[in-house]
């Protein structure tokens, strides 16, 4: 029987020739990723009486959620985490000002390679599937166990196959592709399953789009999202000076739980309306929906390619008088590159507030929360009630192009109208 790419990677990690969906395995873990909120995992590592981790070089930690510290309590937590990192001799630590948001920084730094099994104490760890790795979001005890033992118990998931055909026409991009899938299959459309993106349409997508797609696949309830590595993946790894990893691909005769096709060439800019990432409509239909805040950033869309798209729309235009536009580069490296390219200048000139790399408003933590009755359009991945501040605020999710165009218009706007107009 044929195996999917996810099954092949898990079989190897379990030291097996073959595994079937539904089987429970103990898989060796290649990498573990953590952030400042993973302090909980280190407290549990201590309660496990672990005196050391399985391999300090295979664990990476960044400070991204509560940074720069918005409260004394947050500062105390970051300090407690620093003490654990010293005690457990973890050196791959990205400090404030030298790192950024986990799912932007770790791939950028070449920490994750094709064919690996990655465990992360964050629900969007599935982002690394864009590199052809099996990457799983887990809770703190699982992350602690993975750090202590270097292994994890899991069920081999069935796979939902999503075939992409055609090429998205700019300013349509990766965000619109994943929103289209969410609109179709819903928030539990891939529960416990892997989502594999495949087809000739994948070849037309650059890495930034692939990361966006795998990131937000989490909103369909999936265990992992994955794209088989190709020349674009290899070129990305080569450019950042990372290794090649081990390239796997699904067998022709692999079987799938479900299968969907998305024609990227016919997609229009899309928006997810509150309060669900699967509540998706064309941006055009929302013309006239007034917004108070626009946010461009996060692990979904805080990469250089995203900032380029936004800057192209904002350059020479002004953010509407009633709107606050926050631009949050996903990492320090992204920030620097955008600075050198003049993107930050163009956006600041348009009236955007350029913020430091942080998760900040994405999870309702700090740095730009919403008041009661306000509406925001954001490139982030969740629009649940209360996610960005007041439970009585509304959140719309869209691509960097749609968010930038809406910031200029003062209301939700299809970016094609702003670019043409």
């Amino acid at each position, binding site marked *: 029987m044929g195996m999917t790419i996810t099954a092949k990677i898990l079989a190897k990690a379990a030291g097996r020739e073959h595994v079937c969906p539904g089987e429970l395995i103990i898989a060796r873990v290649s990498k573990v990723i953590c952030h400042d909120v993973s302090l909980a995992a280190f407290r549990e590592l201590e309660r496990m009486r672990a005196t050391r981790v399985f391999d300090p070089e295979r664990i990476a930690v960044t400070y991204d959620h509560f940074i720069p510290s918005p409260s004394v309590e947050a500062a105390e937590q970051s300090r407690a985490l620093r003490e654990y990192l010293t005690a457990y001799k973890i050196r791959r630590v990205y400090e404030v000002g030298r790192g950024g948001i986990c799912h932007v920084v770790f791939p950028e730094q070449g920490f994750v390679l094709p064919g690996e099994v990655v465990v992360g104490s964050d629900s969007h760890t599935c982002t690394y599937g864009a590199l052809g790795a099996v990457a799983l979001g887990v809770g703190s*005890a699982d992350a602690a166990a993975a750090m202590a033992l270097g292994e994890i118990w899991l069920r081999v998931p069935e796979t939902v196959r999503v075939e992409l055909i055609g090429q998205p026409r700019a300013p349509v991009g990766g965000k619109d592709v994943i929103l289209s899938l969410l609109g179709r299959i819903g928030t539990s459309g891939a529960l416990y399953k892997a989502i594999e993106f495949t087809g000739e349409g994948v070849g037309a997508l650059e890495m930034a789009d692939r990361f966006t797609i795998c990131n937000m696949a989490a909103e369909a309830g999936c265990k992992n999202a994955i794209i088989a590595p190709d020349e674009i993946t290899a070129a990305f790894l080569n450019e950042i000076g990372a290794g090649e990893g081990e390239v796997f691909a699904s067998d022709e005769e692999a079987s799938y739980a479900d299968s969907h096709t998305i024609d990227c060439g016919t997609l229009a800019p899309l928006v997810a309306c509150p309060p669900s990432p699967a509540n998706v409509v064309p941006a055009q239909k929302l013309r006239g929906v007034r917004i108070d805040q626009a946010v461009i950033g996060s692990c979904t869309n805080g990469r250089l390619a995203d900032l380029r798209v936004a800057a192209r729309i904002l350059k020479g235009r002004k953010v509407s008088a009633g709107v606050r536009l926050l631009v949050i580069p996903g990492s320090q490296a992204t920030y620097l590159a955008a600075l050198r390219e003049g993107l930050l200048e163009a956006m600041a000139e348009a009236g955007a507030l350029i913020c430091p790399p942080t998760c900040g408003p994405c999870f309702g933590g700090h740095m730009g929360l919403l008041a009661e009755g306000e509406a925001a359009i954001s490139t982030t991945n969740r629009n649940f009630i209360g996610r960005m501040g007041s439970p009585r605020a509304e959140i719309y999710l869209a691509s960097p192009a749609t968010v930038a165009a809406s910031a200029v218009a003062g209301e939700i706007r299809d970016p094609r109208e702003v670019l043409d107009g």
Partner: protein
Amino acid sequence: MRFRGRARKFGDHIDTDAILPGRYLTDWNRDPKSLGRHCFADFDPGFSSRVNPGDILVAGWNFGCGSSRQAAAAALKAAGISCLVAKSFARIFFRNAINIGLPAVECPDLVEEATEGDLLEVAVDEGLLVNVSTGHRYSAGAFPPVVLEILRQGGLVSYVRARLQAAER
């Protein structure tokens, strides 16, 4: 592992923000017990005073969707819930529940037919469930051995601690 308690019933797609709002997340691991008071703080404010130790939470599809916060499962346990039965669980929530020693059993038929306050019995090892109030019996798939072992040890922390100690000897 057998549990007997009254059903506390909830609907579909209850997310982790509803179970435990993000504002209670700060360093919860130091005092997991305190989380019980905040369980369903916004969604169902009377919950923590209404629940009796040993009660069984009964919920619809995709219970626990949203963030990876283990504190959500810990809050239910701290509130006194002994066992969870749902039509389905969100993936990370399911693992988190098992990992803190809170059995999470999928049984759509029981959920469909149970009403608030029914007396339920769950035999986790065998995957057998009984609604004592109605007399109906149900079966759910039995857990794999490693999951049962984690539950028996009271959660993943004690399970790993035991393994590390055994390795040292």
